[in-house]
């Protein structure tokens, strides 16, 4: 999973390593409206469409890695719950100028127990804060890797994924 706030570079990251142009899948969430016991209004439903970008990397003849850019809004947790089950882990992208945008994702992965790494996406090549400063600010434990990245560059995205899988492996072997 590739998570983080709106505009932090999730789709850019997915596109940088994916062998296909990122595709978009939509999930429709339906919930009955307030007047549910009024039979004349049973047709009233509110539907919300959640779009999610994803890419794929064929790693081996019979091994395909999918990268899902998770919809940022908190109310779409159902989509995350769906993804988290088969997931290896998450790259949480962070724009340090808008640090608070990553709080929901960090909270979510800490609670779900899914291994995650924090990747500081340096817009315009700037990394105004060091990983240690961000660790302090986010109150992230010492085991969780914090790296810097440029979501536009394949090599950077690739090494962020390697860091994540190494971290997931360490977590499993513990």
């Amino acid at each position: 999973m590739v998570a983080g706030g709106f505009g932090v570079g999730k789709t850019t990251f997915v596109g940088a390593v994916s062998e296909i142009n990122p595709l978009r899948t939509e999930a429709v969430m339906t919930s009955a409206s307030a007047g549910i016991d009024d039979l004349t209004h049973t047709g009233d439903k509110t539907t919300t469409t959640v779009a999610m970008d994803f890419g794929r990397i064929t790693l081996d003849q019979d091994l395909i890695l999918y990268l899902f850019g998770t919809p940022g809004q908190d109310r779409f947790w159902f989509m995350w719950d769906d993804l988290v089950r088969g997931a290896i882990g998450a790259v949480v992208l962070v724009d340090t100028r808008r640090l608070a945008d990553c709080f929901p994702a960090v909270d979510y992965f800490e609670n779900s127990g899914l291994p995650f790494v924090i990747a500081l996406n340096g817009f315009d090549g700037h990394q105004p804060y060091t990983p240690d400063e961000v660790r302090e600010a986010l109150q992230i434990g010492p085991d969780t890797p914090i790296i810097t990245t440029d979501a536009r560059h394949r090599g950077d995205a690739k090494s962020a994924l390697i860091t994540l899988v190494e971290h997931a492996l360490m977590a499993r072997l513990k």
Partner: protein
Amino acid sequence: MTPPPASHDSYGALHDAHYDSEGDQPLVRPYAMTGGRTRPRYQLAIEALVSTTADPAHLATLLPEHQRICHLCREVKSVAEVSALLQMPLGVARILVADLAEAGMVAIHQPGNGEAGGTPDVTLLERVLSGLRKL
């Protein structure tokens, strides 16, 4: 994140055999071989892989949406790709793929022996890691 089992190769072999035989030799339809498979108890994982096992000659009897999925999944695709490429909501893609799996028209590959989205095991993580390093 899903490794299809090696049986993927046998699909390729069946597929080729069909075109080589020019129809003069009756082939066992793949759906007959997997026949009577019930609808998956689990919800299909979004990353579950789908590959067509149906005899192309049989496709014409299917609903158009089922046909489109069978055509698309001649090369293995995830449920997410079925949804995106055929422009149908994820939930619809899941139901249609499950229908096809029940009818033995497609094979589903997902890790965890059919349990949707089992946590990837160490062997799988190691394979992913070495695959990423070789990119």
